[in-house]
């Protein structure tokens, strides 16, 4: 029943984002329209894939660090991605894919740094250090970014921040294809870790007694979730709240079993971002809202309601 409902919402969200848009395209010409086929459709699919990836990454990280506040962007990746993009602009690298690649490289560098900090004593991954290290690396990267932007005289650099919060404007079948080829591996790694993640919720010691290879699971989950997030930031910039809110909503309906929680977070995150992007494109047309504004406007009230339910219960 709840799967049916979620599936229906997802299909409707995708349909809406293809049918609705600021440009008037008659329903009869939907299949033949260049705008629908080359702009709306890839954008809808990309929104779904990015939202889904962020939802799963958030669910995985929340289980890993056993902290309900964990968001895929909390672990320094947005800072690293922004630094990568600004360095590319400062070096005057040009090309259609320079910014996404540079942002991806920056996110990977931040990921590696945080991972290294989290490996206490070189072996065990400490989730608390991951959180603190992520915040520290993110702040450091942001400081370097701001220093470069304020010292360099290219006005273009100031636009790097626009790009970092860019949303899904750059969606094309190329970026969809990239994500379709890339995302299944980390998604599969996370899904395969569903059972150990359930055990990890009990605490590391109990999980170990129950037979989970805790260290390997922690490493795999952190790397897979971060790699998903790094790809998301490369194709769509930083989109907040999806990775934070969606796992919590999914947990309400599907409980704490990751075998169903993770797929639900994927479909739910995808549907949420597709809906948010449709709203971003249409409500103030011909102007457009940054999609992060819409995800926050939807996500925060939902989150507030959830918090109330928790505190009452």
């Amino acid at each position: 029943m709840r799967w049916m409902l979620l599936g229906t919402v997802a299909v409707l969200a995708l349909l809406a984002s293809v049918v609705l848009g600021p440009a008037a395209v008659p329903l009869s010409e939907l299949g033949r329209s260049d705008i629908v086929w080359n702009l709306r459709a890839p954008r809808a699919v990309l929104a779904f894939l990015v939202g889904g990836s962020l939802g799963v990454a958030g669910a995985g990280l929340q289980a890993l660090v056993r902290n309900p506040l964990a968001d895929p962007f909390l672990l320094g990746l947005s800072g690293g991605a922004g630094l990568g993009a600004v360095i590319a602009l400062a070096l005057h690298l040009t090309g259609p894919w320079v910014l996404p690649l540079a942002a991806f490289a920056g996110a990977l560098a931040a990921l590696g740094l945080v991972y290294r900090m989290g490996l206490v004593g070189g072996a065990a991954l400490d989730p608390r250090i991951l959180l603190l290290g992520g915040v520290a690396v993110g702040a450091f990267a942001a400081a370097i970014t701001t220093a470069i932007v304020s010292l360099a005289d290219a006005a273009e650099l100031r636009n790097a921040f626009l790009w970092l919060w860019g949303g899904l404007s750059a969606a094309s079948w190329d970026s969809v294809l990239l994500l379709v080829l890339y995302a299944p591996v980390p998604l599969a790694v996370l899904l395969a870790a569903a059972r150990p993640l359930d055990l990890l919720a009990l605490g590391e010691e109990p999980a170990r007694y129950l037979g989970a290879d805790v260290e390997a699971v922690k490493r795999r989950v952190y790397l897979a979730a971060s790699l998903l997030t790094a790809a998301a930031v490369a194709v769509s910039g930083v989109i907040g709240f999806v990775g934070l809110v969606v796992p919590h909503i999914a947990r309400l309906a599907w409980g704490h079993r990751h075998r169903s929680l993770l797929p639900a977070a994927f479909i739910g995150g995808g549907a949420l971002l597709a809906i948010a992007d449709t709203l971003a494109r249409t409500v103030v047309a011909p102007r457009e809202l940054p999609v992060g504004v819409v995800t926050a406007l939807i996500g925060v009230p939902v989150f507030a309601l959830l918090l109330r339910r928790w505190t009452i219960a």
Partner: protein
Amino acid sequence: MRRLLLWSLLLVACRPSGRPAAGPALTDAAGRTVPLAPPARRIVSLLPSFTEILFAIGAGDHLVGRTAWCDYPPAARAVPSVGDGMPPNVEAVAARKPDLVVLYHSGPNVTAAGQLARLGIPGVLLDLNRLEDLAPAARALGRLTGREAAAESLAAAMDSLAARPPPPPFTSIVFVVWDNPPIIIGRGSYLHQLAALAGARNVFDDVTVPSAQVSLETIAARNPEWVAVLSDSAAPPAFAARREWRAVRAVRDRRFLLLAGSLFGRPGPRSSQAVAELRARLEGRGVAPR
């Protein structure tokens, strides 16, 4: 709370409530009073447009500081730079020992003008967003430098340009300021005025603000004949090679107008030249890129 109140009362009491009317004075765009006499002889200009106006009215010799962006006329480059001016480096400005600082009227610059005032350096804040701001700015700078006659003839030319009825449009254009997310120029902007006077309809003339984020599909659906980009390079912008931008016909057909920022990006004494060059390029009478 009471102490806070007391402090703010004290601050209000200490604030110079406009200079005592010792002589003729000018009220600037921020409502501040700037003394007119004696005429300014050591001027720091913190906007390329002001630098151009000062040179155009014959006060260029009195410039002792400019921004890193002030590149016209060529003589301006000989004036020491005080940085990019965004926001102004107050110490670098003060080090030029100016008797007048000309600032663009914006929030950070109001703060900077206040800081300069506390150092005893008069600053004047002027609006310069659209064509119709040029004549008042020229007149104000003429009065401040004692070059009223030259300023008046420049102002008259600027007034007539601003009042010129736009010709019937023969083509259409979109100004792309940034590609991801796409940010375009709306009716509130100087570039919109340039395009209109050159005979091009801005396809985003329903956007009343100077610039706004829009969806790529709106640009594609409005189908402008030209995509204009402020750029000092002769190469098409990087987004020209991106697949999603090829949904815009003008991008597919590579109908880009690459407009040099120095001439097209700022209102100034050369605005009528910018209109004429833009018209020539829209008509396909290409002006050789310099």
